[in-house]
């Protein structure tokens, strides 16, 4: 957990303290170490390539026999005759629930991280840090059960309130009664789940703001909030982004909690408060057990789309961080 910011924001500083030693690893320990690290790097790439190849091959088998449009169809029936399945609902549900989660979780996480790193008394900051660490380690099925048994019944009232006052936004228009087993609830649950991840990483980054920056700002007469605005946030920006991407990664792939809370179906609805929708991971978990070989291939095809989506998100995060890098001085 503590090394995560360097792992996801890795522009590696050149590790050559003595240029003379470069290329001439004289001691056997150096040679072994170079070989091992190079080997692990290559191994990782090979594993990734193998996963991609496997997914592509199985997905090809399924998609080539699909009678519906794989990208736009609102149904999932790969074991029917003829097989018809599409990922439109799943992609929509995955993206929407993750966006809701990010909108809720990122500001709160940054707030908590700031509080723990800059406002809380030191005696409180330590234990708070551990508690958040522990929250990140709670298994997702526990969150799922909490969501289904506690969160859903309690959200009924809020849903009615949202429907009454914000129904005009179309998004919060709720048709009919029924428990709050919808994408909005899933988004809230995902926000709770990714909060500790984002908070932890952000806090670590904030703690690494050079003391000199902060002291210089204070010396110029800045208030504590101005210090945070002028030195902590700019310094931590790329860290916040990579932390959010880590959280987003978890939200995109979350399975058990979503499967426990959501009432999935394959109807498209822009109304966030109506039960229904689905996500890639939830759909795979729900359908895998009873699926025959072809059904599994179809699920793997949907998994491939999630794989590509996650890659794109991470790539985009890399680009943003790389562009910000020179301003923030985070990697100096």
């Amino acid at each position, binding site marked *: 957990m*503590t090394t995560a910011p360097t792992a996801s924001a890795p522009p590696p500083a050149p590790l050559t303290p003595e240029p003379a030693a470069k290329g001439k690893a004289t001691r056997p320990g150096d040679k072994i170490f170079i070989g091992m690290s190079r080997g692990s790097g290559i191994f990782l790439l090979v594993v990734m390539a193998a996963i991609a190849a496997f997914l592509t091959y199985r997905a090809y088998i399924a998609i080539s026999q699909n009678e519906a449009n794989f990208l736009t169809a609102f149904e*999932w*029936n790969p*074991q*029917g005759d003829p097989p018809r399945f599409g990922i439109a609902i799943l992609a929509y549900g995955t993206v929407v629930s993750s966006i809701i989660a990010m909108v809720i979780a990122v500001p709160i996480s940054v707030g908590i991280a700031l509080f723990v790193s800059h406002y809380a008394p030191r005696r409180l900051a*330590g234990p708070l*840090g*551990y508690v958040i*660490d*522990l929250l990140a*380690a709670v298994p997702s099925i526990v969150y799922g059960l909490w969501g*289904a048994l506690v969160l859903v*019944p309690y959200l009924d009232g809020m849903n009615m309130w949202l429907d009454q006052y914000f129904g005009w936004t179309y998004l919060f228009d709720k048709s*009919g*009664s*029924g*428990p709050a*087993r919808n994408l909005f609830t899933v988004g809230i649950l995902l926000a709770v789940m990714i909060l500790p991840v984002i908070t932890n990483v952000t806090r670590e980054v904030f*703690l*690494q703001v050079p003391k000199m920056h902060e002291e210089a700002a204070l010396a110029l007469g800045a208030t504590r909030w101005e210090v945070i605005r002028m030195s902590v946030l700019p310094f931590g920006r790329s860290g916040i982004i990579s932390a959010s991407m880590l959280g987003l990664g978890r939200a995109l792939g979350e399975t058990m909690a979503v*499967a*426990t809370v*959501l*009432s*999935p*179906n*394959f*109807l498209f609805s822009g109304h966030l408060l109506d*039960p*229904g929708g689905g996500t890639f991971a939830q759909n795979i978990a*729900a*359908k*895998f*057990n*009873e*699926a*025959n*070989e072809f*059904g*599994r291939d179809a699920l793997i095809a949907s998994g491939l789309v999630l794989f590509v989506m996650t890659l794109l998100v991470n790539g985009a995060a890399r680009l943003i961080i790389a562009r910000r890098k020179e301003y923030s001085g985070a990697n100096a």
Partner: protein
Amino acid sequence: MKLQRRNVRGLRALTVGAAAVSTALLLTACGSDDNTQQGGEDATKAAGNIKCGGEGKLLASGSSAQKNAMDLWIKNYMAACPDVQINYNPIGSGGGITQFNQGTTAFAGSDSALKEDEVEASKKICKSGQGINLPMVGGPVAISYNLSGVDELVLDAPTIAKIFDSKIKKWDDAAIKKLNPDAELPSTDIQAFHRSDESGTTQNLGKYLAEAAPDDWKYEAEKSWPAKGGQSASGSSGVAAQVKQVEGAIGYFELSYATSNNLNSVKIDTGAAEPVEATSDNASKAIAAAKVVGEGDDLALELDYATKAESAYPIILVTYEIACDKGNKADSLEAMKSFLTYTASEDGQKILSEEGYAPIPAEIATKVREIIPTLS
């Protein structure tokens, strides 16, 4: 300085984590101990008529609908025959058939008989033979509801079809009132729950509705829920939990889930003189009308869902054990034959109703008992 601080934190976090993990381990250890003790007591009672055979491990997987029956059988069998280790993994019928056809298990449990292409695939594993269906467990699928003040509810197939197809949306709909003239039906919304995962239970309900109410249910009977509306939950336990939690809910699951959750179940108006209640006995009566449609040693059944016989409960489920007729794996064959002989025996079938299942009819059970010794 920073480095040092981080190390201390890591160590402390580790201590907290270790404490949490060991507590959890301690608790789980207690839990499983209790289970084995209970098992031991029950098993000694029923160990009488089991003929042991073979030794070693017997692996099987498949339908979760017959999980509770399997647990009971395995407990009794292993108490009598300690040389055999049986492991039934309830991963679902589809997964069970896949594993069987890959040769990783000795037999599979399935809610529906093998399809043609699955029989073809089984020939690779069975070499000289092919996979056959042996009916082993029957059971009623209860339709349960949560409606305060209504303890008895009668529905017929067209009404059930319309409710689950979102055509009937209120509890005080005229169609429901007509079937229940005495009940005080509130005007609340009907929350119809179905399974979100694929399931043989869904498929059997679909077959029933398609056969008994063809005008109102025009969907193919698939394992995934075909209709568009309604709400869903994962697994029979998930649906039962939702029905219990949500006022105005109605859902379907194996009878045992209705009993264990204290839920009222719908009586079905089949056209017989009296509406039929979901019980093991009534389900057995409906299964008795089943016809064998498999060829040779294959005992795939065709159920009569549109039955109008007195007190025959029509929404039924039969699960099969799937094994090779010839070419079973030599090292587990004897153990499998001895175990299946027990499950199909009178003793094995008799204990089913304790768990909310229904024994398969005597005529079919006899055929199953004739076929098991011929497996090779």
